[in-house]
C-alpha cells in the first residue's frame, strides 16, 4: 500500500501530483511482468512496442497531473482551459510518437494497444481502490485486516 495515495486529498498541496507519482511507481512495479508477457507472446518487437505503450501511459499521467497543478496555482477559472488544452496536447503527443513509427516493420500494434489501454485502466482501478477508501474514511488505510479478538486492549 502506498502512503502517498492515502494522503492524497487530505490537506495535501498537490494531491493530483501525488496520485500521478503513485501511479508511476505502481506502473514501474508492474512493468517487468507486462513486458515479459509481451516478450513471450510477440518477441523482441513486442517488447519494444509494449515499452512504448507503457511509457506513453506513465508520461501521460505525469503530464496530466503537472498541467492541473500548474493551472490551479494560477486560478480555478484557468483550470478548464488548461485541462482541455492538456487533453489535446497529450493526444497530440501520442500521435506524434506513434504515427512516424507505425509503418516500421518492427512495429506491432497488438502489444502496443493492449498495454496502452489495459495498463491505463488497470493502474487507475488499482489506485482508485486506495483513494476511494481514503476519501470516504480519512483515517482508514487499506491493508491487513485487524484480527484482534474482543477484549484485547493492546
Amino acid at each position, binding site marked *: 500500500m502506498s502512503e502517498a495515495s492515502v494522503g*492524497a*486529498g*487530505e*490537506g*495535501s498541496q498537490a*494531491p*493530483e501530483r501525488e*496520485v*500521478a507519482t503513485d501511479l508511476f511507481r505502481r506502473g514501474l512495479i508492474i512493468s517487468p511482468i507486462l513486458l515479459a508477457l509481451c516478450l513471450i507472446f510477440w518477441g523482441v518487437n513486442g517488447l519494444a512496442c509494449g515499452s512504448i505503450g507503457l511509457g506513453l501511459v506513465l508520461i*501521460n*499521467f505525469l503530464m*496530466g*497531473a503537472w498541467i*492541473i497543478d500548474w493551472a*490551479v496555482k494560477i486560478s*480555478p*477559472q484557468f*483550470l*478548464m482551459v488548461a*485541462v*482541455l488544452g492538456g*487533453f489535446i496536447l*497529450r*493526444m497530440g503527443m*501520442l*500521435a506524434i510518437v*506513434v504515427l512516424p513509427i*507505425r509503418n516500421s516493420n518492427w512495429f506491432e*500494434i497488438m502489444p*502496443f*494497444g493492449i498495454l*496502452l*489501454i489495459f495498463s*491505463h*485502466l488497470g493502474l*487507475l482501478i488499482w*489506485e*482508485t481502490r486506495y*483513494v476511494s477508501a481514503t*476519501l470516504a474514511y480519512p483515517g482508514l488505510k487499506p491493508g491487513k485486516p485487524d484480527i484482534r479478538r474482543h477484549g484485547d486492549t493492546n
Partner: protein
Amino acid sequence: MLSLLATTFSILAQAVTDNTEGLKAIGAGLGYGLAAIGPGIGIGVVVAAAIDAMTRQPESAGTARTTMFLGIAFTEALALIGFVVFILLLP
C-alpha cells in the same frame, strides 16, 4: 471494342481500389475525431463540477482535485481506445 471495354473496366477497378484506401483513411480520421468528442465533453463536465465544488467549499479542494484527476484519467481511456482503433484502421 472489347479491348477498349476491358481497358475501361480495369481503369475503373483500379480507381475503386484507390478509393477504398482513401475511404479507409477518411473512416479512421472520422472515427478518431468522433471518439475524441465524448471524452472532451466528459472532461468538461468533470472539471466544471470540480471547479464548482472547489469554489463552494475551498477547504475540500484537495479531495475535489484528487477526484477530478481520477475522473479525467478514466474519461481519457475512451480517447486512448479511439486512438488505438485509429492506428488499426489507417491503411
